[in-house]
């Protein structure tokens, strides 16, 4: 595996390149499955006051022929999908289906169209592409109904920018080195993300490698959230006090005018 230390910024690429060159000289027979080496420009995304999204560079090297697929997933959560229907002239939530194992964020990137790289069944078992995310429904509905709710979940997530609408591009520099940019929007969920990279060749997965990407609130944002959830009553009292003081202060200031 790659020897490069955790790099905090992708300006350190030359260092990584050296390490990659070193790795590529390992004899092929030693590569039990070491045909793929990857790393991220950052492994922690801190959400602070000025956060408007982040961009992370994923880069790596392959040994041997093939294409590359990159998946980024945030931790799974439970999502209720509701469908409106018209009741007495107004639109009301009437049917619903709850899914488990829905990642809060999902992004796929590849060096070629996914259907050219892997056959359907392999994409399905490895949850490659938004159509193959392994949501688990809580109730049994007809196949058509379930499909409609699944599609709605993906569509809504795409609308808020949390699931990719178009697969990102993995670009090769030469035949061995590849890179892709992972864009995280401002509304990304927090948690430990899994960045999974597949090396594929002739419709088969040759190798895979995973990195963890941590997204968490830092500084003031972290403190406020922690406070709100862990000391809710005190937080509520302080919120009220701030408002009282601000209102009084404004009244006081304007009295002088």
């Amino acid at each position, binding site marked *: 595996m790659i020897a490069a230390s955790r790099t905090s910024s992708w300006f350190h690429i030359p260092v990584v390149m050296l390490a990659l060159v070193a790795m590529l000289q390992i004899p092929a027979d030693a590569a039990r499955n070491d045909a793929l080496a990857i790393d991220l420009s950052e492994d922690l995304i801190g959400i602070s006051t000025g956060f*408007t999204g982040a961009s992370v560079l994923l880069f790596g090297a392959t040994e041997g022929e093939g294409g590359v697929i990159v998946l980024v997933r945030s931790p799974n959560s439970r999502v209720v999908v509701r469908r409106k229907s018209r009741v007495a002239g107004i639109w009301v939530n009437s049917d619903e289906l709850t899914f488990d194992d829905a990642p809060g964020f999902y992004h796929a990137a590849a060096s070629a169209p996914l259907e050219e790289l892997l056959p359907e069944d392999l994409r399905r078992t490895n949850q490659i592409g938004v159509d193959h995310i392994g949501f688990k429904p809580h109730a049994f509905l007809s196949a058509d109904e379930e499909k409609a709710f699944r599609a709605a979940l993906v569509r809504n997530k795409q609308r808020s920018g949390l699931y990719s609408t178009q697969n990102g591009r993995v670009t090769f520099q030469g035949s061995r080195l590849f890179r892709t940019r992972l864009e995280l929007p401002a509304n990304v969920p927090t948690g430990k993300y899994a960045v999974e990279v597949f090396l594929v060749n002739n419709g088969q997965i040759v190798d895979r490698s995973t990195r963890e990407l941590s997204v968490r609130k830092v500084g003031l944002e972290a403190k406020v959230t922690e406070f709100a959830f862990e000391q809710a*009553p005190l937080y509520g*009292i302080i919120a009220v006090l701030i408002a009282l003081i601000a209102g009084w202060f404004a009244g006081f200031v304007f009295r002088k005018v």
Partner: protein
Amino acid sequence: MSIYLPIAEMSVDVFLILLMGGGVGFLSGLFGVGGGFLMTPLLIFIGISPAVAVATEANQIVAASVSGVLAHTRRRNVDFKMGIVLTIGGFAGSSVGVVIFTFLREIGQVDLLVRLCYVVFLGIVGSLMLFESGRAILRRQTGTATRGKLHQHTWFHGLPFKVRFRRSRLYISALLPLGIGFFVGILAAIMGVGGGFLMVPAMIYLLGMPTSVVVGTSLFQIIFVTANVTFLQAVNNQTVDVVLALLLLTGAVIGAQIGTKASGKLRGEELRGLLALMVLGVCAKIGIELVAKPDDLYSINEIEGFGL
């Protein structure tokens, strides 16, 4: 310049929020309403979840009302005794309201209820006010004013626990303001409003209070009711975003002061007429959204995985 809101979990433009706060604060000072019925839909419109919008708006109204009450107190336009009775009812009502809100949030109908409340109550109040103020303006212009009785006597003047409210020049049962406070409190919690747009007409038409003390007294009780809602939402739902509230109230307290000064320049019935038009406008917009076919019939709601 954008800022990341920790509880709403999204990035917003600071100046947009300040401007919204200032604009709504101005109207709240002008009409003596908290402005929540404008601000909460606006917050939802810019992408903040209804749960966070309702809770945070309650927090912001606390500040706007304090600032407004100070201005009205200086002009001796607050009936504190009446305000306290309304507040007692409002406390109980808003506590019940937050419980209802939490329950509806769980079964996924909170959106519908909030919208229906908006349409029904804004519609009723707006139409009544428009009708009444229009008549008052016409009567003044045609000069055929016939002075009626000071107020009409109805069944509720026979209720027990009569109390004298000196500043309002009323001698009525305390049960009446208690009941009004309770009912408005429930709606305040559910709709993310102070309830001024309901309280002000209720005070004028049901209690028969003189218009001069209505606005200040309404703001006075709104402080306590929205403080209670803020606290309960923070405890039950963790949906109060202090950063957002601070931004909104910075704009709102300034706007409210300017609005209060401007309100002296307009006649009572003109103020009520303008407020009525605004109330009906918001009502119509939300009503259309309920009836028009949504772009996507499906919506999603995350149950777990938010927070730290």
